[in-house]
Each structure stands twice: as C-alpha cells, then as structure tokens.
C-alpha cells in the first residue's frame, strides 16, 4: 500500500511495573483516512498512541513513518512530534497555561517559530475549533467541551499532518459531541489524517473509513470499518455491535432492500432514508 503513513511492525512494550501493554502488535494507518482504534480497556490503545509520536520507544519491533523507521534522535523526535499531534483524554492533564491563547501557543513556541508566526498559527487554530472568542479567557473558566477544543487547538497550532485523539467524545454531551465531530470533519476535509480511539461502536461505524481492533496488546483485526464492525469475532471482542448495522441487517432479512450499491446504511439518517425510499418504491408499484 503506497498510502501508508504510519506502520507498527511487531511492536512490543513492557511498562516498568512489568505490564505487557503491547506484544507483537502490527498495524498501519493510512494517509488521509479517518481511522478508529477500538478495544476493551487495557487493550493497549493509549500505549500504541504514545508510540506513534515517539513518547514511548518499543521494547521490540519497529515503528515506521512514511516507510522510514522512526528516528529517536533529538531532532528526529522534534520533527516527528511536529507532524503527529496527540490529544489526550483528560483536558485538565494537558492544559498548562492560565489563558487559552497562551496554552495554544505552547506547541508552536516549542517548535522555535517566530512570535509573529506563532501568533498567526494560534489565531488559525482557535478559529478552526471555533474558540476565537474565548482566547483571552482563563482555562479554568471553560466548560469541559471547550477545554477539549482548546487541547485540539493546541495540537493544530503545530500544523500536524496526523492528529490522534484518545477518546475525544468521553464526558461530552450530545451537542458537544456534534460540535467536536464537525471540527474533526473540517480537519479531515482539509486533508488531515485523523485517528480516534473510542468505545462508541455506532460512532465508529458511521464515521470511520478504517478500523483497528486491539486485543490484549495485539492486533485482532484491521480493515474497512463498515465491514470489520459486522464481523462476529470483532463484535464478540468488543461486546457490542453497531445498532444501525443490526437493524439494517434484520430489515434486509425481511426482504426490505435497505442496501444501497451493496452497502448497508451506516447512520440513522441513511437508514431512515433507505426505509423511506423502500416504502416509496412499494407504494409506486
């Protein structure tokens, strides 16, 4: 595959307390795609993410970026971290500064850019997450969802080609989730590769191009999300299945043609549209 951006090859990692978080994990992340990483708690998702931008170094195996093994020298790591942005789950664990604007400037300042350029990047990143009006607010006065968006802005200001988000929807209400999703969609439309760890199978089924399923530090399955999430083995590991896929499959069994060009609907909207279309066809007959 020529569009492989990142590749893990037989990567193992053991924490100092003896926990084997990854053991012989191999997977790829494709350029320009929306990828979800799924797996039970403790499956190794966060540890895998920490390998992507060189915070952790594999005990065994290798990580490749653009086909080249990661360079763990100071300059190599610097380069890598400017290309791969990592947004952690808890916003309070990654916001340093008192004010929003200052915090977003932290990454680009670390890149050693000119202050004028940093200022421009900060403004653009805050605009991208629709937080410009909160730029001068103190971080502790923001809502949880706003804090998450500031975290994303802080990574965007470094202008990475790949953004990795660890369970970005957790703790957000439905409206905030929609807002965050809109932000991610805009980023993806602008050509950014987006990787998200999530437990929400319905979201994964609707949103993702690719899916990676981890099981006890190993790759269980990887492939097209819509196909993978209908596999019995994957559903058994995750302990659930996408509701829309289940309903569509049941309807298909009853003879209701909800398949469009061979694909089952992936969202509630698509499913409702397919049902309406089916009824229209029936009544036209």
């Amino acid at each position: 595959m020529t569009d492989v951006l990142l590749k893990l090859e037989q990567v193992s990692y053991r924490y100092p307390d003896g926990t084997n978080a990854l053991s012989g994990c191999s997977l790829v992340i494709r350029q320009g795609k929306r990828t979800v990483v799924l797996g039970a708690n403790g499956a190794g998702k966060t540890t895998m993410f920490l390998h992507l931008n060189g915070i952790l170094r594999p005990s065994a195996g290798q990580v490749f970026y653009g086909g080249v093994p990661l360079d763990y020298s100071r300059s190599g790591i610097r380069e890598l971290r400017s290309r791969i942005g990592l947004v952690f789950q808890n916003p309070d664990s990654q916001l340093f500064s008192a004010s929003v604007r200052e915090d977003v400037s932290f990454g680009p300042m670390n890149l050693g850019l000119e202050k004028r350029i940093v200022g421009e990047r900060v403004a653009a990143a805050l605009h991208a997450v629709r937080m410009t009006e909160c730029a001068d607010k103190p971080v502790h006065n923001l809502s949880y969802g706003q804090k998450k968006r500031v975290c994303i802005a802080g990574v965007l200001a470094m202008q990475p080609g790949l953004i990795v988000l660890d369970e970005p929807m957790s703790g957000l209400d439905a409206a905030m989730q929609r807002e965050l999703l809109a932000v991610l969609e805009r980023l993806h439309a602008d050509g950014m590769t987006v990787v998200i760890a999530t437990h929400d199978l319905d979201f994964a089924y609707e949103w993702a191009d690719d899916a990676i399923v981890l099981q006890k530090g190993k790759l269980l399955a990887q492939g097209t999300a819509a196909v993978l999430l209908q596999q019995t083995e994957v559903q058994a590991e995750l302990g659930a299945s996408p509701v829309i896929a289940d309903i569509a499959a049941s309807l298909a069994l009853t003879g209701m043609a909800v398949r469009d060009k061979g694909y089952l609907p992936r969202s509630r909207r698509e499913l409702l549209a397919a049902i309406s279309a089916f009824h229209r066809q029936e009544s036209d007959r």
Partner: protein
Amino acid sequence: MWQGNRVLTEQSAYSNRWRRVTPFAKGWFSLCGMVAAFAAASPRSALLVALILCAVTILGAGVPPLRYLRVAAPAFLFLLASGLSLALSLDFGGTAGGASLHLATAELPRLAQICCRSLACLTALLFLTLTTPLADIISLMRRCRVPDTLLDLMTLCYRTLFVLSETVHDTITAQSARLGYAGLRLSLRSLGGLVANLTVHVWQRSQALHLAALARNNDGALSFLETVYPHSPRTISIAAVAGCLMIALSVKLP
C-alpha cells in the same frame, strides 16, 4: 475562605476597568506604592498612601468596595493579629503569681509605623492582583528577567491549584455522601484519606502533564506567546508620574 478569595481575585482581575491597561503601568504604580510605603516619614503618611492605593483600586479600576473588603479581610485580620501580638505581652512573673497583660507603651510609635507601612504595602499588592490576571503578572515578571524556573513553577502551580481544588471538592463530596464527616473520628479518618488520595493524584497528574508536554515538543522551559498590549506611552507615563507623586507625598508629609 481561601477558595472564595481566589475566585473573587480572579473575577476582579478579569473584569475590572483596567483589564486592558498594560501590566507594565500597573506593576510600576504598585511598585511605587511599596516604595512610598517604606519611604513614608510617619504612620500618618503611610496611612495616606494606603488610602490612595485603595481609592485608586476602587474608584479608578472599578473594583466593587465590598469585593475589595472581602479579599482584603483575611490579610487585614492577619495584620491586626500581628500588631496586637507585638503591642501586648503576657507576663507570668507578677507578684500575685498570675499572668498579667502589658501594653508596650514605649514601642507604640514604632509599632504604628510598622503596621501602617504593612497596610500600605498590602494595598499596593492588592491593587496589582485585583487589576491584573496572574498570566499578565507572570508575563510582566518574565520581561523583568525573573528566572524562568520560578515563572514555570508559578504557571504550573496556578493552573494546578484549580485542578486540585476541584479534586478536593469532589473527594469531600464523595466522602460526605458516605457519611465520611459524620463525627470527629470519621472526619479525621476521611481527612487522612483525602490527603493520601490527593498525594497520589498529584503524582499521576504530574506524570500526565509531563507526557502532554513531551507530545507538544517541549524539552525544557515552558514558553508561551505573551499577550501583546497596545504600547501606550501615555498610560505608562501617567502611572510613572502618579507613582512618583505618591512617593514624594509620603516623604514630604510630616
């Protein structure tokens, strides 16, 4: 009390009339206030300096008087207690064998001078903290070449204060919900649990912050883009002249 004060200080710092005035001007005026406090020839002139600073904060910056008093109250009380402890002394060597309270009459003028100076210094600091958010004060200190390590510590402490006070609040609520503070013995036990929990929490939080800093390419000092205030020679000149006048007044006033 402490948490309430912190929130009140924050509210003032972010909502006062002089929020957008360059911190350099406010810092200079506050410094002049402290110099005036030390230069004051008499308790009366130190008191006048305190009054001027208080009036400037309330009337000039528009900090509500009640909020000012609530923020200042703990410090004022502390000053009062210190003053009383210096003025009064307990004597156990009395003829009747009991303790007696003595007023250090000879030291009273000196004591008045110290208390009034402290009061003036206090109002000078209150002027700065109630009109300027800490982020701006830190950026001002950075320009004044205060060592980076100290400023990084200030930044992290300030940010962490809010995170940890939330954790403390949540833990106490959870403990209370399970009758953790239903008696003295239980309260002490819960308090111990709270401290132990918080210690682990601080350690985990510092690990997480370290990872987050690494992920954003940090390899040393924490550097941020400082807020740029419109360079206003006029504001700085006004602050400088007013500050110098205050010093002159405190020196000249008998």
